[in-house]
């Protein structure tokens, strides 16, 4: 089992965090994991993305060149990464901000109105968790309680007040995908 995931969006949309969350959760369930961020000028006002590999085999290159999964938070990211996806890949599209559909027909698209749901939950910044919830439901890489433990740890005491809304966002996202 190997998932090679790219998560992409505007800087500030929290794609790095959900990438780390997946990595962390993968580690907790005993898988080999790696996380590799985009770094550099794209991050200044442009698009940010990270590569996550979760696998039960040795991880060679941490670079994801043909992702099995894409979590796409904005339109430029869809334009940039759609073509790279492996055939049969799952693509999670933040339909609140992305006004077009996935063009390829050899990949499976999930449209998640993440910003709308996050807004409904009272904090647009948890849109990433909505997306991640959907991804998690689809892939089943780690049980939800492990994931929750992980983000509790990642948020730390100073952001403890954020745990609840994140948990809600995660569950909402999971609900959207019935598998």
């Amino acid at each position, binding site marked *: 089992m190997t998932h090679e995931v790219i998560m992409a969006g505007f800087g500030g949309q929290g794609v790095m965090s959900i990438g780390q969350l997946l990595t962390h959760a993968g580690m907790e369930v005993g898988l080999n994991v790696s996380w590799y961020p985009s770094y550099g*000028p794209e991050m*200044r*006002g*442009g698009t940010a993305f990270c590569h996550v590999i979760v696998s039960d085999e040795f991880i060679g290159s941490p670079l994801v060149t043909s992702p099995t999964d894409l979590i796409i938070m904005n339109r430029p990211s869809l334009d940039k990464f759609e073509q790279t996806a492996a055939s049969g890949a799952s693509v999670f599209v933040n339909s609140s901000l992305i006004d077009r559909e996935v063009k390829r027909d050899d990949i499976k698209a999930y449209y998640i109105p993440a910003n709308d749901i996050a807004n409904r939950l009272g904090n647009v910044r948890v849109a990433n968790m909505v997306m991640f919830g959907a991804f998690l439901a689809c892939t089943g890489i780690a049980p939800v309680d492990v994931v929750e433990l992980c983000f509790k740890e990642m948020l730390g005491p100073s952001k403890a007040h954020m745990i609840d809304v994140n948990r809600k966002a995660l569950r909402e996202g999971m609900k959207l995908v019935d598998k």
Partner: protein
Amino acid sequence: MSIIFERPRSLTDKPFHYCPGCTHGLVHRLVAEVIDELDIQANTIGVEPVGCAVSAHDYFDIDMQEAAHGRAPAVATGIKRVWPDKVVFTYQGDGDLASIGMAEIVHAAARGERITTIFINNAIFGMTGGQMAPTSLLGQVTTTSPHGRDAGSAGYPIRVSELLATLQGAAYVARVSVHDVKNIARAKRSIKKAFTTQIEDKGFSIVEVLSTCPINWGMTPADSLKWLQDNMIPYYPLGELKVDGEGVINR
């Protein structure tokens, strides 16, 4: 129809890549307006730093050279010695100029090198993600002074203009700010004077521009301007320190 305000001719059409509210773009515009007004676009050569303004050549519509980190004054010296009749300027941040490039700026000033330096003091290393600069204020939290800059171990912020003003070759030295419209106008006047000082062959000229880095300061752009005004200006007083090679306190 007449134009009250528009993009200066000496800038290309390319939108700035700077973060929202970052005053680098603003200072670029002022420099370009001065180039336009002095009508020197065709014979001006710019030297860009390593720092957020590293790609200033994307914006200034003139011949330019990218310098190694901190060495812009040396690069500009090389150019100026080849073309003594051209206008040569450097555009440098506080990491670039006041940290790694201290020797080069001091010596360019001491030599009275006929170049102009636009010195963007935003009290931080912007490009690399918010590390302490030599101009970071005491107590300022940065990624390498996580508990605030401590004079005991990290020393005191350097007042670059005051330091350079001690040098005979420095003909024009001024510190300005861009935290409000009035000061923006003043800043432009100083930049123009600096270029004029060069054109009139009077010596080295520098304008230190107090600037913001909202992203790494962790503030909104508007709060950044206020923080600059409330915290930077008291330590870095504005005004002309030297005009035509004579020391003045014109504040």
